[in-house]
């Protein structure tokens, strides 16, 4: 009963479903257009993937603790606007401006957490309200004008965050290593540490966790702050890479990020989360968007395909789950 082979153990893991989905997806797209796995395309897909991925990592922990955050997209747009406004007006050095932007993000996350845990408003309403406030503030302080970033060329900070280099003809961004780093740290945090146990308990049965002396509120506030700060970091990385800090960038990311996390196998209702699953989920969605364009779907039908593939993949996913549940 306790002796099962490696394959059986792999199949029993909750991440097995998303893994199969990703492989199927890669195989299908590749068979239609071999360019799909070309060096140029992979490098291109990776660059944007990790930016959304950073947010998804933090969102995984937050959703495991039973809350979610709709304001990440607006923080993604807000933080770079603050940073580059400060820098471009000469009010601060780039390092200081970066710190100020991250600090503001932390405050936003803290405020989200405060409303949710103290005032006990549902995180849907709190973060929806915060989304509007933050997005509005970004527009207001920038007067709607995008901030220029291209005098960032010689900055060590910019290099550390998104410096790109080539391995052969393969262009890699430093941001990929940030993503890998955060994935490893947060994955370890969730599964291997005491805090990870608290996060899962906070989402699974907050009453029980509180009864055992876990400070559920502090856990949630910390995760809201993490989520806002990673969103800010992702936004700053993106602004440097695309050389523009537009107050509107990041709109609509919230739903996409939540979709990535859910496809990866994290429960929408809290208590169960997986970082590996999220990493797979991030790739599943990004590869899908890239692949659909690459195989030449008509432009206006783009959304039809994205939606249909989400539905189709989740059906496959649920079928895989059920098969393994009813096993033996």
């Amino acid at each position, binding site marked *: 009963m*306790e002796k099962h082979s490696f394959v059986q153990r792999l199949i029993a893991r909750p991440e097995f479903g998303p893994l199969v989905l990703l492989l199927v997806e890669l195989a299908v797209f590749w068979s239609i257009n071999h360019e799909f796995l070309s060096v140029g395309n992979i490098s291109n897909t990776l660059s944007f993937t990790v930016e959304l991925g950073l947010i998804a990592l933090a969102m995984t922990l937050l959703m495991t603790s039973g809350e979610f955050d709709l304001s990440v997209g607006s923080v993604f747009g807000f933080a770079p606007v603050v940073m580059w406004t400060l820098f471009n007006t000469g009010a601060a050095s780039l390092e200081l401006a970066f710190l100020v932007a991250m600090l503001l993000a932390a405050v936003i996350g803290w405020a989200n957490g405060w409303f949710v845990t103290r005032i006990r408003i549902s995180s849907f309403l709190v973060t929806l309200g915060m989304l509007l406030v933050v997005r509005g503030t970004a527009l207001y302080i920038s007067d709607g004008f995008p901030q220029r970033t291209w005098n960032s060329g010689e900055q060590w900070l910019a290099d550390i965050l998104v410096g790109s280099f080539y391995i052969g003809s393969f262009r890699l961004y430093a941001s990929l290593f940030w993503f890998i780093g955060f994935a490893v740290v947060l994955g370890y*945090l969730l599964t*291997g*540490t*005491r*805090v*990870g*146990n*608290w996060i*899962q*308990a906070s*989402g*699974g*049965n907050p*009453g*029980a*966790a*509180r*009864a*055992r*002396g*876990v*400070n559920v509120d502090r856990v949630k506030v910390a995760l809201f702050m993490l989520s806002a700060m990673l969103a800010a970091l992702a936004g700053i990385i993106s602004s440097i890479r695309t050389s523009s800090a537009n107050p509107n960038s990041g709109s609509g990311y919230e739903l996409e990020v939540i979709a990535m996390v859910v496809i990866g196998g994290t429960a929408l209702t809290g*208590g*169960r989360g997986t970082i590996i699953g999220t990493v797979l989920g991030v790739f599943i969605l990004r590869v899908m968007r890239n692949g659909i364009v690459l195989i030449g779907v008509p432009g206006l039908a783009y959304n039809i395909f994205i939606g249909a593939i989400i539905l189709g993949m989740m059906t496959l996913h649920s079928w895989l789950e059920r098969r393994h549940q009813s096993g033996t």
Partner: protein
Amino acid sequence: MAEPLIRMASIRKAYGRVTALDGVDFHVNEREIVGLLGDNGAGKSTLIKVLSGAVPLTSGDIFVRGKKVNFRATNDAIAAGIETIYQDSALVTQLSIARNLFLGREPLKGPRFLNRMDQDHMNAVARDLLKQVGITKNIPPTTPIGSLSGGERQAVAIARAMYFDSDLIILDEPTNNLGVAETQGVLSFVRNARDSGHSCIFIAHNIHHVFQVVDRIVVMRRGKVVADDIDPKTTSVAAVEAVITGMNEPGATHH
């Protein structure tokens, strides 16, 4: 006599317009097992929820070893040495047995800043505890609570109280759902608790179980304490039942 371990004075608790506790005085001495009895809805669970900081009281005072305390959350009560096993068993169904057992008190391993849980230790202890509490079946400690039977869940909750020693252990109907062997496990655990210097509040509807282990019986009815010094050695089960249902009172009416 010295101050009791716990003293609750004139406790009132109202849920909206429902008065669940109506001026309750209650105490537990050091090394004493108190049986708390009463009909459904008498206010037993509410009383111990107040004592463990799970619900705020409307008015009244709580003293621990003579010092007035103000429990605003369960953490405060746990810090004061009060451990509680709730009736609506407070386990996280998604987590494994071992993770539930150690929730809030996870042992660490390696450098502190890594915050690394010592999962091997947790699993080993969990395996031991399950045996102690009377579960003979071989259940791996990594099994999620969600796939246990009703009684197995209750046993896990009991095991948790056995492991962490506190000054006062509160058990709200711990023997519900339990089989013969497991029930014996719990009762002998309560007896041992006194011998090792702990106090205990034991709530159960099975008066036979209560009689087997407690030093003193307190009876509640409709939010009030109606008897607080019944000695199980000198009183009959029938007499206590009469107190619980209110039959002993002059002019007691029953509809």
